[in-house]
């Protein structure tokens, strides 16, 4: 429990850091975001209307520190301000339209990639210099060196555009009614296959290598030797003794990889016009919709922190040593 509390404290701190960063970034940067903001209104607003809008967007002349506390207060109340591009919708509402899909896409991709990559790492380490171990790691490292979005473009072009095997975009067919019907779920899967596959392809190599390397180290350890000396079947030695332990560093890495994969899946979403946060963020940047941009950054950060906390729970369950520490 101490362990979880400590982690929780750390995440709260990280969340606060992200919030603070979010507040000060626009205020430390050169240029006036407010000016850019009003360029969107194409000079058609009168001074009073401008002033009213300024206040709506929270751009006041109050001292920085009091602005900061007002801002913290608003965020705690779930008030992220109003989107400029989607005026007059609140940022949170705009973000809410796609958050589920981003979490679904990134979450599934990271879990699938982790599972397959780790399993391949186990196989690769167990049959050292076998066919898989000789070719797969290098191949996957090579594939992993491609930019996410580039691979996404190629996959979309070949499998979607040219061959027509997969839909070209969106999270589900526009005729589908969301719900827990088999057809809907099948449709969601059909739409998610390509975006997830690209993210998985690019990240697979990393998991494979990290698992393979720890596995090789663990396979030389005494407890694996003992397990073999005990006459256990190779499957049991690998899974219960070697892999189970080699998994621990990978799980620690999992938390950190989440943020990374999320970044990648944002890029992938853009290519597949998947209705998540990716394009929203880019569009917010292009429109200089600062409130929306910051809102997305915050929400994504909080999602990653939350996922990290979940990973910590998993770690707690996987490694009994973290449990006992009183």
């Amino acid at each position: 429990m101490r362990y979880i509390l400590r982690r929780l404290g750390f995440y709260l701190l990280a969340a606060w850091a992200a919030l603070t960063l979010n507040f000060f970034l626009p205020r430390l940067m050169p240029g006036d975001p407010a000016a850019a903001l009003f360029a969107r209104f194409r000079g058609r607003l009168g001074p009073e209307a401008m002033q009213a809008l300024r206040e709506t967007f929270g751009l006041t002349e109050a001292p920085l520190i009091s602005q900061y506390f007002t801002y913290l207060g608003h965020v705690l109340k779930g008030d992220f301000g109003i989107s400029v591009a989607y005026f007059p919708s609140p940022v949170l509402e705009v973000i809410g339209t796609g958050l589920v899909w981003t979490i679904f896409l990134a979450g599934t991709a990271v879990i699938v990639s982790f599972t397959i990559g780790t399993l391949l790492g186990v196989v690769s380490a167990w049959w050292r210099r076998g066919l898989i171990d000789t070719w797969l790691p290098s191949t996957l490292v090579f594939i992993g060196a491609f930019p996410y979005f580039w691979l996404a473009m190629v996959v979309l072009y070949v499998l979607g555009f040219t061959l027509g095997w997969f839909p070209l975009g969106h999270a589900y067919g526009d005729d589908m009614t969301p719900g827990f019907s088999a057809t809907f779920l099948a449709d969601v899967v059909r739409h998610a296959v390509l975006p997830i596959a690209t993210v998985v392809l690019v990240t697979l190599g990393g998991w494979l290598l990290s698992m393979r390397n720890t596995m090789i180290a663990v396979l030389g350890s005494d407890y694996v030797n003992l397990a073999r000396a005990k006459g256990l079947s190779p499957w049991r030695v690998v899974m219960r003794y070697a892999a189970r332990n080699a998994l621990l560093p990978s799980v620690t890495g999992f938390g950190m990889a989440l943020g990374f994969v999320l970044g990648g899946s944002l890029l992938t979403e853009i290519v597949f016009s998947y209705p998540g946060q990716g394009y929203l963020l880019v569009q917010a940047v292009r429109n200089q919709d600062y409130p929306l941009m910051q809102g997305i950054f915050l929400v994504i950060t909080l999602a990653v922190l939350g996922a990290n906390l979940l990973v910590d729970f998993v770690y707690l369950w996987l490694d009994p040593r973290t449990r006992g520490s009183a």
Partner: protein
Amino acid sequence: MSKPVLSMRNICVDYVTDRGLVRAIDSVSLDVIEGEILGIAGESGSGKTTLAKALLRILPPPAVITGGEAYFEGRDLFSLSEPELRALRWKRISMVFQSAMNALNPVITVGEQIIDTLLAHDAGTPGAARTRARDLLEMVGIHGECIDAYTHQLSGGMRQRVGIALALALEPALVILDEPTTALDVIVEKEILEQIGDLQRRLGFAVLFITHDLARMLQFADRVAVFYAARLAEVAPAEELRRAPRHPYTQMLLSTVPSIRGGKDRQESIPGAPPSLLDPPAGCRFHPRCDRAIDLCRERTPELRELTPGHSAACHLAE
């Protein structure tokens, strides 16, 4: 008596390095008699643990067994296939590792590790296995509740006892103890050794006991084999070895043991360092440290010769 349960003949083990082979076990021949405790003594790095793991064929790369036979219950361990080995391991030969901390899986309970072993050799239902695991733990003096404990929750002594319980789980004919008490304090060490002794008498298995602590060895073992730089230097019944060591190395080793030769001429340690196995000296490997060395020692490698029945030494000068 005197029927050997394990018969080693000219065993050689090499480590492959980029500069060629390094011989870690050089032509070792040794018998373990049914129901006896055979001690193997030697400085660290002399090849004791290598021998133990080689017998079970669990020496990790880059080790290679390059010669000899190891007959166990009539079969050569070095010519068994993988499935044959798996069936034999632990059921007939088991081992207690040097550090139970490293040898026990940290993420599953000790009970599961014992049950695993039992089930791997088809010893009944999971329920029965659990009962048996409890019994085994209690047999080595650990409370049955500890079956659900993880390694890190146990003390050093308890871990080592778990290792012993594990080794005895399938009632093997031979148990290899690889410095089972190195990391423990003297009192716990004594307790555990006594316990092993008791169990050995009760269950009748043979023991191959490896340690660098000659004093302990002489109290505990029936016979003792002394290793020096990958080779056997001397093999003798414990009592005889203590009384009349023939090899200069054994003699020096005994002189470092406090309780045996009294305080006066006791040495802190043997002068000089054991030779590098990468580039061992010609002739007798002990000659650079031997104060009685003659030219012959520098030229010819001494064979292990039986000097009196049951007592052999590898020294040109030994009579």
